[in-house]
């Protein structure tokens, strides 16, 4: 092996990401941001101040309050964890354990559950085209946006009191670090280090509390590409696509586990409400 080759290999080794498996305990140093990221963040404030997501929040509120579906019922009896009909503050406490289903559920999963049980909608039909397009915003997306908006300014506070909530977190953590697929990627390949970018997009390090909030912050998000509203269900779905994994099931338990991992890592941070994304 020549000297040049050895140097290259050393550089490659140094560049290989090391994935910390533990969430940092002490306050980690601030993540360095480059000039491009600084510029994006400056104008993100402008974009967030007047966010078309509000149009979808309004739509979702109307859907929540209107009697619809085969059972002609509104969602005002839907229990998001704080009692039937309580929307304020529910989003930041999800995912959580629900005794009636015997499992941990995330916001959209629970909303779909309510649409099926209270309004009589068909789960399989809702799962058929669950994501927004330029011409169609699925009802659960608008409703989730409304529900999320009702937690604006509140701290992320998912419960870890129930053994199933802790088990779900542990499962989510395993999924986060699991490398597989054609490209050998795990979630951590892109989201396990500080201050990294894909192209010009800042990649939050979801293993740090101050960065993990960025997985929650901004979602549901008004996506500038296409001008459509997306929830975390879409975000994870498209992440797995780019991870070269098979297609995750909509509102499936694996996604809830991952969302639990992200939510618990974001605990204590303030949720700013539906956001705006690239």
């Amino acid at each position: 092996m020549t000297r040049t080759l050895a140097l290259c290999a050393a550089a490659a080794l140094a560049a290989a990401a090391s994935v910390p498996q533990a969430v940092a305990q002490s306050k980690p140093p601030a993540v360095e941001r480059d000039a491009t990221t600084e510029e994006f963040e400056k104008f993100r404030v402008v974009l967030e101040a007047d966010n078309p997501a509000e149009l979808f929040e309004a739509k979702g509120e109307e859907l929540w309050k209107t009697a619809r579906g085969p059972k002609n019922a509104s969602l005002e009896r839907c229990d998001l964890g704080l009692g039937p009909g309580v929307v304020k503050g529910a989003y930041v406490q999800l995912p959580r354990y629900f005794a009636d289903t015997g499992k941990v559920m995330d916001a959209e999963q629970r909303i779909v559950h309510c649409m099926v049980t209270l309004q009589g909608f068909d789960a399989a039909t809702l799962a058929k085209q669950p994501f927004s397009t330029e011409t169609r915003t699925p009802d659960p997306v608008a409703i989730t946006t409304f529900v999320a908006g009702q937690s604006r300014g509140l701290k992320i506070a998912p419960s870890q009191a129930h053994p199933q909530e802790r088990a779900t977190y542990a499962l989510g953590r395993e999924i986060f670090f699991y490398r597989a697929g054609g490209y050998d990627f795990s979630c951590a390949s892109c989201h396990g280090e500080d201050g990294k970018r894909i192209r010009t997009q800042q990649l939050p390090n979801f293993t740090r509390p101050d960065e993990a909030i960025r997985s929650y912050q901004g979602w549901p998000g008004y996506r500038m590409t296409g001008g459509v509203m997306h929830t975390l269900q879409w975000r994870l779905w498209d992440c797995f696509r780019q991870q070269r994994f098979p297609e995750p099931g909509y509102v499936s338990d694996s996604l809830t586990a991952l969302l639990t991992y992200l939510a618990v890592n974001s605990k204590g941070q303030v949720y700013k409400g539906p956001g705006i994304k690239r």
Partner: protein
Amino acid sequence: MGDPMKIRTKLEGDVLDVRVLMAHPMETGQRKDGAGNVVPLHFIQTISAQLNGKPVFQADTSQAISRNPVFGFKVKGAKAGDRLSITWTDNKGDKRTDEVTIPTA
């Protein structure tokens, strides 16, 4: 026609800061849908804002305005209780007007 606008106002002294969000696809006529068909040009062409019935701010716009448009403008000489109405019209003849009363600060 169309979904309601979101109109937000903030009175700073006698200057009214207005922000308006409009639900509109603002199709450029260049985009193709999932089936590969070109989506026809569909965009807001004019916007007019009136304060107590008097025109204050008017815009002519093209398809270069982003989808679900956001505009901001400022009017001097406004006060709480004034009525602000905003109307848009698009190239298909659709039209929508929304009105708010400026709240007491």
